[in-house]
């Protein structure tokens, strides 16, 4: 049992990471990563939505008619996204304002649908819930990594705290969309070359998951 969860987490965060392995959820990874705080809240929102969507999909997987399962999944995912949106509006209005339309766009994040379809549909609820947290964490960590470099080079700050001195010239390109593409490309490249030795193993694991 414990081994299962360990495997789910190493797969979600590294071996089967949604962003640099499955190349899912790229649009939001590019859009919200110019500030670390935005990335963090986006990451937490996604962990919540993915985990609970997978849990719900898994709970009702035996009753769901196969040919309408996509409709059901979209309904479940959008309900959780609206819950996150309402929660932020009521309790963290400043965050809701900063993230603006991106919260609603969690719905279109392929990671959630992808995990619901490939994992939650065939696995028990608790495993599915753990898988949601793992995939969400994998996504959040990559987002934080990208935004760390973008914010540091683009604004000279980390989480809004200025760390590079006056003499630092901000790289405006890092805040703009091209900066996100550069960073994402570099991160995928580094991650792929780091894990190239164990490529065979992870391929088999992906097939199993």
């Amino acid at each position, binding site marked *: 049992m414990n081994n299962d969860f360990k495997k789910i987490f190493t797969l979600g965060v590294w071996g089967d990471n949604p962003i640099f392995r499955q190349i899912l959820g790229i649009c939001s990874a590019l859009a*919200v990563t*110019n*500030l670390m705080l*935005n990335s963090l809240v986006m990451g937490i929102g996604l962990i919540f939505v993915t985990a609970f969507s997978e849990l719900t999909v898994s709970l*009702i997987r035996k*009753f*769901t*008619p196969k*040919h*309408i399962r996509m*409709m*059901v999944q979209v*309904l*479940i995912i959008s*309900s959780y996204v*609206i*819950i996150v949106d*309402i*929660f932020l*509006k*009521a*309790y963290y*209005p400043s965050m809701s*304002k*900063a*993230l*603006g*339309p991106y919260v609603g766009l969690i719905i279109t994040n392929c990671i959630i649908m992808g995990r619901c379809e490939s994992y939650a549909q065939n696995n028990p609820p608790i495993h599915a819930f753990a898988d949601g947290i793992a995939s969400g964490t994998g996504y959040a960590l990559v987002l934080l990594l990208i935004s760390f470099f973008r914010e540091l080079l*683009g*604004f000279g700050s980390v989480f809004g705290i200025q760390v590079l001195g006056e003499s630092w010239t901000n790289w*405006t390109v890092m*805040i*703009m969309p091209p900066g996100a593409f550069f960073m994402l490309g570099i991160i995928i490249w580094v991650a792929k070359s780091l894990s190239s030795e164990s490529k065979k193993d992870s391929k088999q694991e992906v097939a199993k998951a």
Partner: protein
Amino acid sequence: MKKSLIYPIAFMIIITVFFTSILAFLNYSTADMIESNENKIKREKLLYVFNIPVNDYNPQTVKSLYDEYISETQIGNETLYVAKDEDKILGYAFLIDGNALWGSLRGFVALSSDFNTILGVDFLSHSETPGLGGRIDENWFKDQFRGINISNSTGYEYIIFNPSPDGNVDSISGATLTSEAVRKIINENLNELLERAKEESLNE
């Protein structure tokens, strides 16, 4: 085997009703809170455009300050916000809106009581990129609009970006299109407003 038609439909209806009622309940139970948050933001913004200092952002303090200085009147179907210190009118604030780079933008502009000076500008909602166009929310940008004399402006160009010879505001580097859109929205709304003010004073 023929697929059953009723079961999927019934299933979909049940699950939709279930989730919709959860959302409806959440929406209903947080509606007051969201409204009071929005009111608080609106009050803070109005106090800001009139340059009334707020020392404490506690909702109660903001509300009492707001009630002390600002009153609302309806003109046609638009709301006009009037700021008064005792009986002296400090100025008027108007809602402005328009399309910025990524979506609609709403905000307030406050003018002095003789309509000659912009007292302040603030933005209620917009969907500009955080860290780029979203920097229109930063104080250094908004503070530039304080005390701009518009009585000598020609051709509806009230706000002009530096380094033009008549420039009065710096645009945001890296967010040229958002800055330009904000400039246009403010100029267009001001123009419309001043035209209306002129007509109404002629009618009097």
